[in-house]
């Protein structure tokens, strides 16, 4: 497997006027690799992704992106103003014009064929999410960044989309950086899981985790091989407001 490095964060951190949103994050996404960021609300997942994407400039550390990298981004939130007459078909051409075949495949894969002439504003949360994903993959990117891609999608659709994300990686041979707020459910196809809570708490492969009893229990319960449990233990305490004392960082243990 080729291991071309697509993006890399080195000890990257982002500080607003009054606080650090995230600190000391190092991660690499290689071609053909899926990296998943998990963590509770406000743990700095989106901020980390935005630093990797170049939307935010790290206030400390550095962000590297391969030259000429073609990125597709599925943001966590996208508000479409009512004054904007924009249907799904036009939305596909937002940042570049995808090839007809690629667009057709993306529409097929996400099952949104019947929505093409609908205005974006009229879509339900789950439909909108599928459209966002379809647009992103129709661009045939080198790197796909998905910020909570299955939010608002019903349970069976959720499994389908996780499966689809695995297929995209194999078809396009692209790197994928995915964010999930769900601490327990992570795709089995993920190569690396990084748990954030203002810093990197721990990271590892879900494969190593899949042997645990907890995983077996949940694996049986959910009944889908595409969902894996990533169990982690913290050997440090978070204060009541969610902030972390950074001096114990070296003591983080990885499963």
């Amino acid at each position, binding site marked *: 497997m080729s291991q071309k490095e697509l993006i890399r964060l080195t000890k990257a951190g982002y500080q607003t006027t009054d606080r650090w949103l995230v600190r000391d994050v190092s991660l690499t996404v290689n071609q053909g690799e899926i990296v998943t960021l998990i963590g509770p609300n406000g743990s700095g997942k989106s901020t980390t992704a935005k630093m990797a994407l170049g939307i935010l400039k790290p206030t400390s550390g550095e962000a590297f992106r391969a030259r000429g990298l073609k990125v597709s981004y599925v943001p966590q939130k996208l508000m479409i103003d009512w*004054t904007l*007459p924009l249907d799904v078909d036009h939305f596909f051409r937002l940042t570049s014009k995808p090839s007809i075949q690629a667009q057709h495949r993306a529409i097929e894969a996400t099952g949104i064929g019947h929505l093409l002439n609908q205005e974006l504003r009229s879509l339900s949360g789950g439909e909108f999410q599928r459209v966002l994903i379809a647009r992103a993959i129709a661009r045939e990117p080198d790197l796909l960044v998905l910020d909570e891609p299955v939010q608002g999608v019903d349970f069976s659709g959720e499994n389908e989309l996780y499966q689809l994300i695995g297929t995209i990686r194999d078809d396009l041979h692209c790197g994928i950086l995915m964010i999930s707020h769900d601490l327990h459910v992570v795709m089995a196809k993920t190569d690396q899981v990084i748990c954030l809570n203002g810093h990197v708490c721990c990271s590892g492969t879900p494969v190593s985790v899949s042997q645990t009893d907890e995983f077996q229990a949940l694996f049986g319960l959910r009944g889908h091989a595409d969902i894996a449990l990533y169990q982690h233990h913290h050997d440090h305490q978070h204060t009541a407001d969610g902030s972390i004392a950074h001096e114990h960082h070296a003591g983080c243990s990885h499963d």
Partner: protein
Amino acid sequence: MNIMLDAAMIDDFFVRAVLAGIGLALMAGPLGCFVIWKRMAYFGDTLAHGALLGIALGLLFELHLELSVFLVCTLIAVTLFLLQRRASISSDALLGILAHASLAIGLVVLSLMTWIRVDLMGLLFGDILAVSQRDLVVISGTLVSVSAILFVTWRSLFAATVSRELAEAEGLKPQRAEIIFMLLIASVIAVAIKIVGVLLITSLLIIPAATARRISTSPGQMMVLSSIVGVFAVILGLTGSLNLDTPSGPSIVVASVTLFLFSMTPIAHRVQNVLKGA
């Protein structure tokens, strides 16, 4: 029709005003759509108020009026951009302060220059008698450059309108597109003063675009329809202005508001269905 007659027609002040107005409406259409989508109506208004300061300074330093208006509008936009970053007050209050400060300073400077006679009503509300051959050349030049620039930056400007972060992530440089957009608005304001006047420029941006929104089904269609509605409003308004001896700016605005009200009726829905089928 022979060439002599054509030349005579361009000599006619009314024909000049109509041609200038059409040129203006064609530019204002697409830009007005972006003003609406980006919710920047008040921003446009602030720049337009600043145009009076531009005229005052232009007269004071004997510059080309269009150029000085363009420069002052750009300066206001940059000031706004910088103040917003470190602002301790809301941006609408900031816009209000800048708008009225520049209008007031402009008026004070104009009245202090006792050696120059200025038709204040003409500046505030437009004066079709004032459109010269030279103005037509300036407006055509502006129309060509604004259209060309818009054509080139359209995708990144539109993507930035839908989502700044998405545009940035996918490599479209939204900040650059937004700065260019600001300059385009400033140039339209600079050439619009004689036709609609300082106080009503924003309406030429907003009302045709809002009218077009009622009947269009895609962004491109809305921009084209917005231009068409603007052209109609200019022709109707200027004809009314000529026949009723009313100031040109308010007449054009009344005409475009009439078209807007018309778009609220069920007829607009039918037009939309026809356009959808097309």
